[in-house]
């Protein structure tokens, strides 16, 4: 039987089991790296560096995970903090590496033109709206979970998601016909 995230965390806590932590990394690496790639506007190298930092930081602080929220929510919070600290240092001077970004996307899932416009529209959103939209609409977090990750009030998350969605819908209006 496959262990739950909480079961793996218990093994890390009780036995300092790094294999169990490796399984947690394997389970969540795609979503964490995906989120960071979008937050950094397609800078894959930076996103992967930040993802590594986030997982190492999560391991060091795993005793502070009290199980009140899902492990993934707790991990997203650490991930977002890593990104925010780095963005503060760089003052959001992260450029869009369009060519590499496009190469990484799956060409069969979304029409290439739509994908390009969607990613471009997403990258144009202000950081607070982009983060809220990515967490809630793409990664499936509830507004409450996103509020915990972003450390902002629930109402602010709802507003940011609403505004972000509206902007994306306007930009992509032609595709939705």
């Amino acid at each position, binding site marked *: 039987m496959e262990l739950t995230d909480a079961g793996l965390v218990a093994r890390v806590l009780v036995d300092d089991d790094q294999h169990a932590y490796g399984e947690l990394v394997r389970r969540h690496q795609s979503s964490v790296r*995906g989120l960071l790639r979008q937050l950094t506007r397609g800078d894959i190298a930076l996103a992967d560096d930040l993802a590594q930092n986030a997982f190492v930081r999560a391991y060091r602080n795993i005793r502070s995970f009290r199980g009140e929220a899902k492990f993934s929510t707790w991990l997203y919070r650490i991930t977002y903090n890593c990104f925010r600290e780095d963005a503060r240092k760089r003052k959001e001077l992260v450029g869009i590496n369009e060519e590499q970004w496009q190469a990484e996307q799956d060409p069969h899932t979304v029409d290439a033109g739509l994908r390009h416009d969607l990613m471009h529209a997403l990258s144009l959103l202000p950081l607070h709206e982009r983060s809220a939209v990515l967490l809630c609409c793409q990664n499936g977090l509830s507004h409450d979970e996103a509020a915990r990750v972003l450390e902002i009030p629930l109402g602010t998350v709802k507003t940011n998601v609403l505004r972000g969605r509206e902007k994306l819908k306007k930009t*992509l209006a032609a595709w939705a016909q």
Partner: protein
Amino acid sequence: MNEQMEQDWLDKKLQEAAPYIEDDGFTARVLQRLPARQARLQFLRPLILIVASAFASALTYVLSDGGRFIIVEMFKLTTIPTVWVVVFALASGMIVLAGGTVAAMSKANQIQS
């Protein structure tokens, strides 16, 4: 397209635009960067317990006049009726069994939750 359908369409496209990212050695790189396990501390824990137990045993032996009280108590035990000895042994066994069962259930719950 109504508003709810537009919202669903947008969410679906956003999710499709985030395909699964292959591990490609990422997990191994993370594991290499993890701090080393606290081997020294794990080695110290049983050592401290053994030393403390040995010290406590030695102290008890000295303070009890060479363990004389054990001989006295053993002698007293021989005067207890056999039925009481059997009852005492059964009760002790049941207490140990109950303790072990509770500990096992607690550990199983901890791992499952």
